């Protein structure tokens, strides 16, 4: 929620973990790469004869140039030791190490959710996503997570598909139930 706008620890990188500059460098390098791709792919944009003084390539080139320049600037800053100030928030514990496992689990459950929407329907996919996320984030016991997941998915399906007419596919389990169909 809160991007620490007031620059409270800006530039000082107070909570920089030792591994962070590498990741930051990769990210900044990625920005340069996007700029380069922008130039290369931009050269392939056809210019129709009808295009006036400023064709469809000019603005892409401009943006790509800006990206390359900023990316290089960021890399120089990082090499000089100016790391970014990670965002803070009410639920962020500044003293703990990055929990990559949990992040990975959440990404995984989102992927499973995407795969399940079509074959099993939205409510099942949503329940799996909620159950998996709650479990990944440390909610216990599992059966309470499961009950909340199922109830939430059914309520959302009922309110948005049944009442508001948003076309969420109910899946074969709920196909015949009137109130879950938009």
């Amino acid at each position, binding site marked *: *929620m*809160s*991007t620490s*706008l*007031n*620059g*409270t620890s800006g530039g000082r990188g107070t909570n920089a973990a030792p591994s962070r500059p590498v990741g930051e460098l990769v*990210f900044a390098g990625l*920005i340069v790469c*996007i*700029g380069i791709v*922008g130039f290369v*792919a931009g050269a392939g*944009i056809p*210019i*129709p004869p009808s*295009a*006036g*003084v*400023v*064709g*469809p390539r000019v*603005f*892409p080139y401009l*943006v*790509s140039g*800006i*990206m390359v320049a900023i*990316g290089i*600037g*960021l890399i120089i800053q990082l090499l000089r030791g100016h790391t*970014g*100030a*990670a*965002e*803070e*928030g*009410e*639920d962020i*514990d500044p003293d703990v190490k*990055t*929990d990559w496992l949990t*992040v990975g689990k*959440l990404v995984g459950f989102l*992927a499973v959710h*995407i795969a399940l*929407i079509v074959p099993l329907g939205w409510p099942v996919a*949503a329940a799996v*996503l*909620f159950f998996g*996320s*709650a479990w*990944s*984030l*440390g909610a216990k016991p599992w059966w309470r997570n499961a009950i909340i997941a199922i109830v939430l998915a059914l309520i959302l399906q009922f309110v*948005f598909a049944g009442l*508001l007419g*948003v*076309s*969420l596919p109910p899946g074969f389990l709920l196909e015949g139930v009137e109130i879950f169909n938009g």
Partner: protein
Amino acid sequence: MDNFLALMEGFSVAMQPIYLLYALGGVLVGTAVGVLPGIGPAMTVALLMPITYSLDPTAAIIVFAGIYYGGMYGGSTTSILLNTPGESASIVTALEGNKMAKAGRGAAALATAAIGSFIAGTVATVLLSFVAPYVAEFAVQIGPTEYVALMIVAFLTVGALLGSSVLRGLASLGLGLFIALIGVDALTAQQRYTFGNPFLADGIDVVLVAVALFAVGEALYVASRLRHGPVKVIPVAGRWTSWMRKEDWKRSWKPWLRGTFIGFPVGTIPAGGADVATFLSYASERKLAKGERRKQFGKGAIEGVAGPESANNAAAAGVLVPLLTLGIPTTATAAMMLVAFQRYNIQPGPLLFEVEGALVWALIASLYVGNLMLLVLNLPLVGIWVKILQIPRPYLYSGILVFAAMGAFSVNFTPVDVFVLLVVGVLGFFMRRYGYPIAPLVVGIILGPIFEDQLRRSLAISQGDPIALVSTPIAATIYIVLIVIFALSFWLKKRQKAMESEVVDPTPVAVVEQKEGGK
């Protein structure tokens, strides 16, 4: 007095029972999400957009207006009552209310924030009603060259001034501009950066990007460093009717008004949004306080809550001036409001007051109504907000993910969109981790196509001569103002850092403020 009549007509629309209900729903949802950490008004508007298609435009805009104001009220409740020990840094303006709550004066802090927000919101909405039509009249006369200048101001102030690192803000802006380029060029119908992919040829939906960055990015980021254990909320003693003592009223009313008149102008110029306004108000209250009261600053001075909270709300109304009259959003929430308008084929800008007059005035009228509702609801319902504040975090963030996935799927009803949600969400995670602000990206995505269009038009007029972009008197003035804004804001940032290290004592119990500017 045309405008006055138009406003009255707006009221006659906004006061219809069904629209009152929508406004009530909007402010309730807005407050609830404002209270919750991890969800901001920008994200709420983004999430609700795909699923409010069945509403008529007026109803939808009224709901979004309610969310916009409600989010402000909710945010102050969180910063006052949520106890997050060990926070590495703090924001002075949120500090005072939190300190008051710890000293058992939480009720007074909540009350002065709510009443101040109401007064500021109402006065600022009055100012909006009278200023906006004149700005719109001026805006009708300006050409593409001046538009380009105005948008450059918006880009640079949002990109460079939000957040702590200028380069990171601009990089975020650049990413937004780049994503906006993907798809078909509006002027020549050529595909750009689609790599032959029919899905990319349609462009990447801005709602999808916004939901991904705000919701998924935030959930992943919080998950990576989640604060475990129970949520600690500072208890509020006594009944809400006895919240403000006579002395509190006496000390609050001047900061309320000062905050209002600081906040509104700062909101109208794109100078960093509500956060600049809150800081300016805090600094001036501290300067004006004398003797014993001065010493209270940093330990729970009621002036330090009353002023900044009012300034924050007044700035939120001020932000609507450039949004409605020029079509230029200067905060992430304003950017999402702009998208909401566009979804209903309403183009904010100079012609909005002429073409969609009835709708705009209904929107403004509903801001008055929403403000009153918020004042009436906020104080008595504080018990409910505290309950919401205590939702176990695993369930909160799982719920956010489910809602985000639903919103993404509802854009086009294809799982591919949910995949894009995941990819952009991971991008949002790394942006947060490495200190890149999110708002510039969203503003870039929305203003990018409009900017390119105006840029090409003005260059077509000048036959490709870029000097023409700065040579008209109005454009030149705008660029000079831009330089002044930059000089001022860098000076302000220095002052702010100095004051923060001065006010914050060595063992701060800090609460990061949950405010507009962030998302």
